[in-house]
């Protein structure tokens, strides 16, 4: 681990061969052979916090990449403008996200420092996308931070394309770490129970931690939802989990 990093904007081949922009952060003086981490941003977009999280994984010694799920909206835009336009179009299809994450994993494994291991982590809608990725893409570990609508559909009136992906969970290809707030309503504790039951019934490797006094987005340091006790413990869980599998 070290604080000396190299950060840059790159592109990789995503779903359908489309060019996807991404924020890539690498340790400057890291281990010569190391794992990679994909950071999936939340529905509001490829924002400053998501990029800060990406840098944190590089500090931990990983090559870290944050793909921009809304790349196709246009290049050189303010990320919040791109997110608003993507939302107005109903979001991005799951198939496209999975294809983009496959491209990101291939990109990381193609780096000269790669040890072949790739993990994925996402927050909020990105948590759901991390589960989706672990069900459809060859990754070695997945972290689901309070991903909603994994076990139930988005209401029809939502105008969004997201649906439950619980039917895909029996095909989960990697161990999963789940971090949830007990005061969250999406995913609610019952939603988390439903996901856990499918994991248990299918003999999947998983580890869930649920925090009292925390609701949605408890990792977000610049929001009122930030809960330092849960976030600090959660980060320790993430470091241990990725350290084990990557």
């Amino acid at each position, binding site marked *: 681990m070290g604080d000396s990093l190299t950060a840059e904007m790159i592109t990789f081949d995503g779903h359908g061969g489309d060019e996807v922009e991404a924020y890539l952060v690498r340790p400057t003086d890291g281990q010569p052979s190391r794992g990679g981490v994909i950071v999936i941003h*939340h529905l*509001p*977009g490829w924002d400053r916090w998501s990029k800060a999280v990406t840098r944190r994984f590089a500090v931990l010694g990983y090559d870290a990449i944050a793909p921009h799920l809304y790349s196709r909206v246009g290049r050189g835009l303010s990320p919040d403008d791109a997110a608003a*336009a993507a*939302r107005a179009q109903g979001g991005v299809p799951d198939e496209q996200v999975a294809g983009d994450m496959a491209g990101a994993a291939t990109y990381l494994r193609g780096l000269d420092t790669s040890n072949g291991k790739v993990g994925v982590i996402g927050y909020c809608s990105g948590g759901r996308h991390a589960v989706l990725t672990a069900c459809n893409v060859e990754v070695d570990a997945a972290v689901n931070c309070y991903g909603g609508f994994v076990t139930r559909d988005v209401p029809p009136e939502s*105008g969004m394309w997201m649906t439950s992906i619980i039917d895909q969970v029996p095909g989960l290809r990697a161990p999963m770490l789940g971090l949830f707030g007990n005061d969250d309503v999406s995913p609610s504790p019952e939603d988390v129970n439903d996901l856990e039951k499918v994991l248990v019934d299918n003999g999947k490797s998983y580890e869930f931690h649920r925090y009292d006094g925390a609701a949605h987005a408890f990792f977000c340091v610049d*929001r009122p939802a930030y809960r330092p006790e849960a976030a600090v413990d959660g980060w320790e869980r993430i470091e241990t989990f990725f350290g084990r599998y990557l």
Partner: protein
Amino acid sequence: MCSYTTVGTAVAGSAKGPNGSWFHVTDATVYFDHPVHALADHTLNIDLADPSRGPSARVAVELDAASARALVAAIQQALDSAPAELTA
């Protein structure tokens, strides 16, 4: 939580947007979700946009729920106060 619920409607009017320029707006998108800037976990967000001019042709507002309801009431009061023939 994330509700993801997003309501879109066509509008006709103008907004003062990026670079202080006025532009015609054709679409409004309304949703209750995490804000980009407002100091709240969730806000009522309104995007007034002209998609034909690209994603940057947008005026964005993020209001806490009480403010959003107050705005709805204020809009309704202003409309109700005008002669009916002007607001039909």
